[in-house]
């Protein structure tokens, strides 16, 4: 039996998620023994034609051409995995969805007319069917490995969609939200990061996106009780996963509200 083929595509992104694949160092050589890296421009000049067994797609769609990349990826691949905050919720560049792109271009470029970019930053799932979303900014190495291992074994990956708080307590962290009134999105954010921010002494900023059934209304009230202004609450929900539905909802609850 030939080895399963893996492809890695990139759209608008920072490449951090792809790098996490390379960061699997301890098992990287084992990995290339088990799978064929068929298309991965960041790591290899070699291109093996599809179809591919697993395809990771990093980044969000910001231009027409990228829609084509996404469609091709869908055609070429058996299992299509959208990675990262970009691939699951539009990424940091998704923040432009709440502003006028022309403003941004003018702010950033002398000749905005030479810049080619679309109005919105969309996650690939808005254009094609995605088989698995792997959130995180960047995706966690352990989860990335689990996705590959699970695909090789023919089972679902064990990712855990529960809130960051669950992991935070397993880490024996003191809850910063309660003990020091530090704004923290842990209760509504999906874990996978290992409860990183609270473990490193700061509030979670939601880079893995919302957990299942996130109660953003209650979270918003808690932040308000801590003294955050509506504008600050909107900013918290509109971070690198601003495109995720629950966080969109959370932001909407406070958008345009006065102090």
């Amino acid at each position, binding site marked *: 039996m030939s080895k399963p083929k893996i492809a890695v595509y990139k759209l608008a992104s*920072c490449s951090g998620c792809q790098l996490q694949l390379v960061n699997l*160092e301890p098992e990287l050589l084992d990995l290339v023994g088990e799978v064929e890296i068929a298309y991965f421009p960041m790591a290899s*000049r070699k291109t093996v034609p599809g179809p591919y067994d697993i395809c990771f797609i990093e980044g969000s769609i910001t231009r027409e051409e990228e829609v084509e990349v996404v469609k091709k990826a869908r055609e070429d691949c058996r299992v299509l995995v959208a990675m990262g905050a970009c691939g699951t919720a539009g990424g940091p560049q998704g923040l432009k969805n709440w502003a006028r792109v022309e403003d941004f271009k003018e702010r950033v470029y002398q000749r905005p007319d030479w810049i080619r970019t679309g109005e919105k930053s969309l996650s690939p799932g808005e254009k094609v069917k995605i088989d698995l979303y792997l959130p995180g900014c960047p995706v966690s190495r352990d989860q990335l490995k689990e996705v590959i291992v699970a695909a090789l074994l023919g089972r679902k990956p064990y990712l855990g969609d529960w809130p960051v708080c669950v992991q935070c307590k397993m880490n024996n962290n003191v809850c910063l939200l309660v003990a020091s009134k530090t704004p923290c999105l842990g209760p509504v954010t999906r874990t996978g990061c290992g409860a990183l921010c609270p473990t*490193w002494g700061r509030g979670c*900023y939601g880079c893995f996106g919302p957990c299942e059934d996130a109660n953003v209304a209650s979270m918003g009230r808690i932040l308000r009780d801590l003294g955050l202004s509506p504008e600050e609450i909107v900013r918290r929900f509109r971070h690198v996963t601003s495109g995720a539905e629950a966080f969109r909802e959370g932001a909407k609850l406070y958008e345009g509200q006065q102090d």
Partner: protein
Amino acid sequence: MKDSRISVGYLARVEGEGGLDVVVSGGQITDLRLRVFEPPRFFEGFLVGRSYQEVPDFVSRICGICPVSHQLTSILALEAALGVEVPPEVTALRKLFALSQYIQSHALHAYLLAAPDFLGYPSVIELAQDHPALAARALSLKRVGNDLTALIGGREVHPVGAVVGGFPRAPTPRALLAIKERLEQARGEALETVGAIAGIKPPEFSRPTEFVALTQPDQYAVNGGRAVSNRGLEMTAAEYKKKITQTQVPHSNAYHYTVAGRESFMVGPLARVNLNARSLMPAAQEALSRCGVAFPSDNPFTSIHARVIELVHSVEECISLIDRLAPALPRRGGPLLAEVKVKAGEGAAFTEAPRGLLYHSYTLNSRGLVERADIVTPTAHNLRRMEDDLWQFVPRVIDRPLEEATLACEMVVRNYDPCISCATHFLRLDVRRVG
């Protein structure tokens, strides 16, 4: 190859999306473009209106390969704007943080991106089959760098441990000393890397270049300092816009930069080693004399030599930083933070990212919200130089078979270890006030 076209649709083994087009007609290059089609992500745009506290987390996302550099540069610029003074432990820990990323990034480039070119493989995967020990060394070096980044910042990509003012949770002395043992092992691996590179003869391609790098009197400059060049440029971050000129070209989503009134310039490891060799750690200076190349060097193909010299330096300096830091840190970790008072202000900062000079500058309003953000990355600084190199280099390979010529051109680009995602985030020009 009288009339032909070298076209690399998608440059492999570089970070981000770029391509290359060279049109040769009658034996002459008639057109040459290094296209950057990595879509722009408008970081400077959406940073406006965000709190200074959020900036390091956002700018990190400009680049997954050098997130630490972006975070630290923004922190230094914001601290300049807010007038924050940090204790020496914070400064030392920041340098350790930055160097950890040098180890990771340089090992990645030397072994995974560049070595396959020199040894004739499409990627490290094929290379690993013939040279397993070499691959194992590469990965072990990279992992030490990554683990040190993660120890300080939580994870290797987009770490969370550094904020304006310092570190909310410094690593424990015990954890630092544990990783120091691994760095001591890495020292040997870094030296072996120099040995391996010394055996590689770079293509002959020397050309006069203006090299720009940070310098500090007492150490190998990484975070902060003055930028200087071998042609007499000297500037602080605050003077950057007076001394560096920026132009936009239609074929690229990235700006081009020149020294005001002069030509393109080069930043990165080669510039640093050329200008600051005397500040390298002794072991790195030793290695320098054995690496098969004489520095200062005008040959861009010797960038890889400079990079592995810096690998040795970084490992060495990390060890010595840990020796200094460990006794000064609290036993159970805990915060290492200077007080931050929010006020309006403007600040700029330079750091040396693994790929070279990185510039951030911000204006904050009285609520600590960003009014203006400027970010210029090393790859952006180098882009014009890369094109210039290609104009010079292509005629030498123009008579070789297309395949070979294309690979040679790609190698010219990979010398710079370009980070294209980084390069597509640029200066804003008109200052518009918000908030």
